[in-house]
Structures are given as structure tokens and as C-alpha cells.
């Protein structure tokens, strides 16, 4: 994997953490949530890149900055698109979704599988 691509993927990952959080996060808090092995300095670099790109805003918190995600033009477009998508039943447009809808039996089967996995750990 090229360094540039890896950086892009890390940016996405860090962004998901910022969005999932209720509050602004410091690099240390981001490190906690990332679930992957990265260095503190890397987290700092990624966060400041996100800030420079206008994907996040930051505020001082003690000696560090805390970052929160920012709604961008692309996200506003995506929101409008979502409205269009939910109105259509074009099945191809709904392609490549992470998960589809479940039937009642499938839901039951999934809950059982999740239970099994939780027990195994």
C-alpha cells in the first residue's frame, strides 16, 4: 500500500471516530478509539491534516487541541442524495450497501450468532 493511500485511509478512520463521538476529541482520545496500532504523532498529523482540509474544527483544551468533525459541502450533497435515494426503489442505485434489510427469521438467526460470538471471547 502506498504511503499516500494509507494516509487517506487513516484520515477516513479518524474521521469516523470524530463523528461517532459526542464531544470534541484530543489526539490521545482518538488513539484510544482507533482500534489499530498507530503512533501518537501519527494521530496528531492526521488530525491537523483534517483540520487544514476543513473536515474538522479544533479548540484548545489544556496543552492540546480537541477536534470535532465539520459538515462539508460533500456531506450536504450526500444528504440531498439520500433524500432522492430513499424516495426511489431503484434497486441498482442501492448497490453495494453494507447490509440489506432482514426478514424476521434472519434477525433471530443473527442475534443467536452474535450471542455465540460474544460467548467465544
Amino acid at each position, binding site marked *: 500500500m502506498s504511503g499516500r493511500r494509507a494516509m*487517506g485511509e487513516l484520515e477516513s478512520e479518524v474521521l469516523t471516530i470524530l463523528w461517532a463521538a459526542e464531544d470534541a476529541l484530543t489526539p490521545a482520545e482518538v488513539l484510544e478509539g482507533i482500534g489499530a496500532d498507530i503512533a501518537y504523532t501519527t494521530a496528531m498529523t492526521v488530525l491537523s491534516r483534517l483540520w487544514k482540509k476543513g473536515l474538522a474544527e479544533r479548540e484548545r483544551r489544556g496543552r492540546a487541541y480537541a477536534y470535532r468533525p465539520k459538515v462539508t459541502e*460533500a*456531506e450536504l450533497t450526500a444528504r440531498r442524495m*439520500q433524500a432522492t435515494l430513499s424516495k426511489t426503489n431503484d434497486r441498482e442505485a442501492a*448497490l*453495494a450497501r453494507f447490509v440489506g434489510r*432482514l*426478514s424476521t427469521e434472519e434477525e433471530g438467526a*443473527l442475534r443467536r450468532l452474535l450471542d455465540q460470538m460474544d460467548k467465544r471471547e
Partner: protein
Amino acid sequence: MILLVVPGVTAVAASLAAALLHRRLRPAVAVPVLTMLSAMSALALLWSFALLVVGFVGHIAWISEHAAWCLALAHAHDAVPPAAGIAAIVMLAASAFAVVRHERRRLRLDAAIEGDDELVVLPSDDPIAYALPGRPGHIVVSVGMLRALDGAERRVLLAHERAHLHHRHHRYLRVAELVAVAVPLLRPIRDRVRFATERWADEVAADAVGDRTLTARAIARAALATNSATGTPVLAMAALGVPARVDALLDESPVGRRRLTTLTCITLIALVTVTGSTVQFHHLLAFAARLCGT
């Protein structure tokens, strides 16, 4: 006359049979094989219908006078009875109509999002996640979905959607969808291509995060979150949905030997399809030769 239809029907039957075996193949193999089989057998079938039309129309007296050369192409065959000829015309017209309508209605979202940042977050509490193909493609995820998963599970989600974009799954889905629209008989193959692209992305994600159980859990969590948020569940194709994907990730039994025999099977079926099509393509060649004046 029956001879005209045999190759097309054989091809369709063979690829439907192949679709039943798709789970014995690695998803990365199943997707292109099934997509290609469905496209080829659709062409073979439609071409069969076209020959019936030629056989029928060509034997109508006033047309055969003006288009003797065309008739010569089909002269090896008997005149096609009107009922079959008209039925073939109706089938072809219905196919063409369905394809045109489908293309007109298709949403073109590719160019909708500008910028080249990979991730686009929807500020919505509904759990949503999908890959949006384009140059570059985007991963669209809602805040609701991000909050339904933990950090490691979110990495699975990103890896899964990235796999869709990186391996250009939308192209296979597009071909399979067009085929299903043109020849509704082949819809089961489209459904299996859809399932296999999801499995493919699941496997890539599992490799990326290095943990099959984690991958299975992320998919199960996301599916349950989506369901509880959207109310009434829609009937999904039994055994083709999320539980089957989760099962496949948790099941690590070796399928190597079965895989080999299946591969032979698939090769055979592919051969049948190709033969089925080539038997008919000599007509096309004759037609091309005529057009070129040889």
C-alpha cells in the same frame, strides 16, 4: 425450428445451473464467472429469438422477394410458423423496451459528490452505509451507523466499502442487472452476483483487519442496527442475506477439494455456453459478410 432455440435455451439453463453452485467458489471467482455466464446466455437467447424472427419474416412472400440475400442466411432452416415468429418478435420487443426503460430511470449518482476525500458522513441518525462508485469513489456512512459500531467494527465497515470501490463491484452489478432486465429468467443469477459481491467485500475486509470473527460481528451488528431503525423488515431471499455472510465468515472448514471439482464443473458449463453461442454466430458472420459485400 426447434434447432434455432436449442443453443439459447441450453445456455440459459446451464448458467442457471452454474448459479446454484456459486457458494462453492471463492467469491472473487464467482462474481466474474456468473456475470459473464449470464451475459453470454442472455445474448445467446436473444440471438435465438432474432433468428426465429428472420425465419418467420424472411418467408413472408413480398419480403422474401426484396430481401432474398437475407433469406439466404436462414435458408438452411424451414420457415418458422407465424405463432413462433410473432412470439419471438414480442419477446425481443419486450426485452428492448425493458432495457430502454431501465436505462432512462436509472439514477446517475456517480458525479453527485465533488472532492476526493474518501469518506462522506451523513449527519443522520438512521444507520446507513454504502459505496458510491465514481472517480474517485466515496464511502457514504451516517452518524447513526458509526455510533452503532465500535472502533474495530468501523474499520471493518470502511474496509468492506473500500473493497467494493477498489474491485469495481458496481460494474458486475450493472451487467447482471441489465441482463436480468432484458431476460427476467436470469434474475436468480443477478441475485447471486449481488450476494457474491458482498461476500467478496467481506473477505477482503476480513483480510484487511485480520480477524474473521470481528468482521462477522461488525456485519451482524450493522444489519441489526439497520433493521431496528427502519421498522418493518422486508422479506429477503432466504439464506442469501446477512446471516449467510456471517456464517461463511465464521465457517473456516477447508473447501479446497470441493472447489476443484466445482471449478471443473464451471469450466464445463462455460464451454457449453460458448458452444451454444458459437453455433449461432455463423449466422452473424454470414450477415456481416453480406454487409461487407463479400
